[in-house]
């Protein structure tokens, strides 16, 4: 967009406080030297800086800024969306009667989360993070989840998958709600293979989900999938003022987390995205990547791609696996093509490097 440092940026930076923090992101982006090729590429094509938080500081008084003011310190929340992205919990592995058993420990708790810079949300979380840990097993293995409710409200864990009624984690069938201070062990076979999810099913259901009790559940096919840079994106939103509408949208909770700091990927390497829509209050969410197309495996339950596209629409609870390779270096945006969500936090970048 522009290669010369903008005098406005340094002046704003000196203003300090909130404004200073806001300006810091584009300032860093201007000052930190890029990888050689990327820089040359950007100069040659005039691209590569597209939209990266610099819009509001350009010479045109009327141009729009994108992103929030300030940043969320991962230390405050105790988790980093960039870490969550590639963090898979494969459990503690045991052999029982010739079968592989994976044991997971999950604790539900009440926790305040900073979902956008400076904006706190009184959340409920599995293992202190939103989304909860990405649980991962292989088709046919036994999955055992030791669930402890350390929250002040009754909760459950309901898994999408194939299992007996007792393991369905709904309050209407035994064991029903797991009350505060109680625990329960959910146990079932990992099937079918694909990308699934788990969430609390206590009533009122929308609230127990919207407060943050959800996570991705991956069942790998027996033969595995090709080696790839695997990333989990749980698309969520937060109703901060309790009007049954979301004020903030995100992938993995923190608004603009991947906008302010792009996800780094290697040029030409296979990237596999596990995309789960757990949004409440809005019927649809979507995923769109710029300057690229991806193979789309709805729910991940078949090994053949159903579509080759750059935009998919997902209803509540819907999910799928996207596979793509980036042929060119540079910064490439991804966001909900429900543009309102993008403006409200659900917007990020892949930074493709050699």
């Amino acid at each position, binding site marked *: 967009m522009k290669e010369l440092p903008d005098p406005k940026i340094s002046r704003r930076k000196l203003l300090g406080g909130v404004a200073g923090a806001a300006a810091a992101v584009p300032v860093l982006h201007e000052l930190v030297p890029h990888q050689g090729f990327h820089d040359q590429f950007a100069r040659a094509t005039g691209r590569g800086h597209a939209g990266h938080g610099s819009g509001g500081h350009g010479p045109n008084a009327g141009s729009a800024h994108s992103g*929030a*003011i300030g940043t969320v310190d991962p230390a405050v929340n105790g988790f980093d969306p960039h870490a969550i992205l590639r963090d898979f919990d494969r459990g503690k592995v045991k052999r029982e009667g010739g079968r592989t058993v994976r044991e997971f420990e999950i604790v539900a708790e009440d926790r305040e989360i900073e979902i*956008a810079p*400076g*904006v706190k*949300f009184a959340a409920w979380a599995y293992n202190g993070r939103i989304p909860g840990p990405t649980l991962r097993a292989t088709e046919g293995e036994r999955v055992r989840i030791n669930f402890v409710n350390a929250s002040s409200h009754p909760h459950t864990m309901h898994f999408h998958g194939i299992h007996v009624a007792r393991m369905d984690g709904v309050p209407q069938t035994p064991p029903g709600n797991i009350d505060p201070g109680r625990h329960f062990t959910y146990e079932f076979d990992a099937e079918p293979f694909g990308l699934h999810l788990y969430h609390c099913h206590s009533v009122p259901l929308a609230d127990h989900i919207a407060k943050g009790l959800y996570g991705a559940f991956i069942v790998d096919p027996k033969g595995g999938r090709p080696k790839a840079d695997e990333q989990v994106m749980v698309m969520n939103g937060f109703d901060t003022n309790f009007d049954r509408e979301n*004020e903030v949208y995100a992938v993995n909770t923190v608004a603009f987390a991947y906008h302010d700091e792009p996800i780094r990927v290697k040029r030409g390497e296979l990237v596999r995205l596990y995309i789960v829509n757990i949004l409440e209050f809005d019927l649809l969410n979507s995923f769109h990547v710029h300057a690229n197309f991806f193979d789309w495996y709805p729910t991940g339950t078949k090994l053949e791609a159903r579509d080759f596209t750059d935009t998919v629409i997902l209803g509540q609870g819907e999910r799928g696996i996207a596979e793509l390779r980036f042929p060119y270096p540079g910064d490439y945006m991804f966001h909900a093509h429900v543009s*309102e969500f993008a403006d409200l936090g659900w917007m990020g970048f892949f930074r493709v490097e050699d």
Partner: protein
Amino acid sequence: MEAGQATVEGAARRLPAWLVGLLPLALLGIAIGLFVSLGAPGLDRNGVPVEELSVERTVLRPGEIELTVRNDGPDAVGIRQVLVNDAFVAFEQTSDDIDRLGGDMMTIQYPWIEGEAYAVKLLTATGATFEHAIGAAAETPEADVGFYGLMALVGIYVGLIPVAIGMLWLPWVRRIDPRWVQFLLALTIGLLAFLGVDALLEGSEIAAGGPQALGGASLVFLGAGIAYLGLAGVDGWLRGRGERAQAGGAGPWRLAFLVALGIGLHNLGEGLAIGSAYAIGSLALGAALIVGFALHNTTEGLAIVAPVAKGERPPKRSLPRLAGLGVLAGAPAILGTWIGASAFDPSLAALLFGLGAGAIAQVIVQIAPSVRDAGGRLLNPLASSGMVAGVLLMYATGLLISL
């Protein structure tokens, strides 16, 4: 028991009076001090902080929206993000945490488009949101000399000139039948009653949009009470001076002065409303509006001269006096437009409208005796029809100027 009481009263008598008067206050101070030093036992906030914000002033510049925000609630409020039409936007603010009744100036970067509507949402640290609607975006005029000149011109057109023209009815009212003068005085009461009610309603409406912690609509009634009692005091003082000098002719002029003062206070509020509406772009200063105000306020000039028409010969130097009354009644409109356009504050506006309403009520009380008939009845057929005519006249001309 009785002996004890006598001893206490005896002791009290020996102390200086001011000390005895301060005793309850001192005890109250000690009680409050104890309560606070013990950390207000048992009265911790039950639940989450109560956040209230109101936007007092909106200024639009190219690519920028500036809001003056006031914390209207009991707890501190921290604005953390700003959303315009459902999108996060860049902004700067003067204070991260706004204390109770504290203010904050927010400068929001946004490429707004002229004539379009915007919903500005302020997102606080607790996730609460406060929405401020901008009906039709228009650039706020820069408050330079030219702008103040324009506002002064508007004030002159809607205040000074119509009132002065209305006062030119004086020679006519001097010649007409005394019964018709009485009718005109009743008409004046009608005009004033309309203006008074109008001021109460408009003041309350403006106050409703401002911070409630400062009193809201009750400021209108506070202003009305102060003006009514204040003018009653001024009137008593003038009466005393008049009696010490000589009685002849002082009465009608005193009345005219009070009418002019009441109308002046009302026009101050009216100017305020015009100036602020113009400044926030919700008012086009079209010719129709100016014409409407001119017609509307010309009747105010008639109200001022009606009391001095009562047959007595005009005292010397009556022209400067009349001019003074005209300025008193009309010029505050200029001041009002300046305040309204540059430093509009809903609470101040409510108070000023209240002052106008109270002043008008006092003036009506002053004029009322002049419309009594021979039998001393106030609401005689002539007076009643005059009042109705006054209200209808104001209503009809008022249709031209809905802001």
